[in-house]
């Protein structure tokens, strides 16, 4: 595997292979090693969760990590540009994991770097490793993501996790995907047009909640709004509360890429449908397998 910029850079077989390896890793059937390898973290946009999970993944396999997890901490603040920073990290490491606030930054970095580049989120564009975690969580719970009914709730316009997920779902022929959002935050037309499975736009999750196997909730991406007043119009426009979850089927699940703000009532955490902590716990094993594939470590 070379670069991972979009989830569609992978073939379905490769996705399934990553899932199988993650299963094996969790069951202790394989041990993955990255001895002598160095992973760069280039987080131009601050992140805790994603950066730490990549770091933990690399360290747990005996690899080493260098880089930065917020723009202030590095020379970017002193005026060094993206391209020069990527050239430097390309010399210092075996793989570059990049997060950046601008759309297309990861692809641009991959054209400069000789070493593989993993997109850990570029603007409102894509976040493919999160999608692998999402789909793997669904596979763990349902056996396969194939043929399920999804409800994607929240900011479908600016959430890169949603872009990558709707694309990743093309591998698994969902029965239906409800796109549930305020009208201003609908999935972008050009993304919706490329989907080859049934979708339906909704505003109120209550209308379809009994139908849904997987409710995928996202935070409103405040930082991507062109202006504050647009954000004010939609903030707190949806919320997963006890009333909504009571209407969900018992065997359905709620996922969220985290961090969350107010879109999920914390009382939901104790409901059997709440699976976002399980989802978060699968980030390190899945990213371990991915890093191992990309960097080319030793398997035992």
């Amino acid at each position, binding site marked *: 595997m070379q670069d991972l910029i979009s989830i569609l850079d992978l073939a379905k077989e490769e996705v399934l292979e990553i899932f199988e390896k993650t299963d094996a890793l969790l069951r202790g059937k394989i041990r993955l090693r990255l001895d002598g390898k160095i992973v760069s973290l280039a987080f131009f946009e601050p992140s805790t969760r994603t950066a730490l999970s990549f770091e933990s993944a690399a360290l747990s396999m005996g690899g080493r990590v260098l880089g930065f997890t917020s723009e202030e901490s590095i020379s970017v603040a002193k005026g060094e*540009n*993206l*391209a020069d920073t990527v050239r430097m990290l390309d010399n210092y490491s075996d793989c570059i994991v990049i997060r*950046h*606030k*601008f*759309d*297309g*930054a990861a*692809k*641009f970095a991959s054209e400069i770097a000789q070493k593989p580049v993993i997109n850990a989120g*570029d*603007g*409102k*564009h894509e976040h493919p490793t999160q999608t692998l975690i999402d789909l793997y969580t669904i596979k763990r719970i349902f056996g396969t993501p194939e043929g399920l009914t999804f409800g994607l709730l929240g900011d479908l316009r600016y959430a890169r996790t949603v872009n990558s997920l709707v694309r990743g779902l093309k591998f698994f022929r969902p029965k239906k995907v409800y796109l549930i959002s305020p009208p201003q935050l609908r999935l972008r037309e*050009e993304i919706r047009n490329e989907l080859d499975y049934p979708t339906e736009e909704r505003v109120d999750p209550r209308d379809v909640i009994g139908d849904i196997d997987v409710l995928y909730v996202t935070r409103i991406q405040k930082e*991507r709004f*062109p202006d504050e007043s647009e954000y004010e119009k939609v903030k707190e426009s949806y919320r997963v509360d006890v009333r909504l979850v009571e209407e969900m089927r018992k065997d359905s699940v709620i996922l969220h890429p985290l961090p969350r703000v107010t879109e999920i009532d914390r009382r939901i955490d104790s409901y059997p449908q709440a699976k976002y902590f399980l989802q978060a716990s699968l980030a390190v094993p899945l990213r371990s397998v991915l890093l191992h594939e990309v960097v080319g470590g030793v398997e035992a």
Partner: protein
Amino acid sequence: MKNGLIVSKIKNGTVIDHIPAGRALAVLRVLGIRGQEGYRIALVMNVESSKMGRKDILKIEERAIEEREAELITLIAPEATINIVKDYEVVEKRKQKVPDKITGLLRCTNPSCITNNDPEAATKFKTLRKSPIELVCEYCETRITEQEVLRQILE
């Protein structure tokens, strides 16, 4: 010319035919011609065409068209033919193909695209549809329509 609008032949230069009606001025803009350059130019607009209904024709004396200019012309005039005239005779008829990729010529309309925020990141578009033109940014996947291409050329 069968429609009766008489424009004399040029001696040496270029005739661009089959320009969509009303776009000859945009084609001139692509060529960077604003009138002060001194070229002898004949511009015929909105004349009948058996192929296109109506069309524009442009004749420019003592001016060659470079490959890159020809490519850019196809973005707003995909059917255009470029005739090279020497001594009153057409010595070469070029039908330029719409390029599959367009690098550096146009801007991405997404303000958060890396190409609008990093001096080293030149724009790169892939052609999705040739006529009318539709492009997609290779970095952020924003789509650019013919209207936007025309807007950028004419501004």
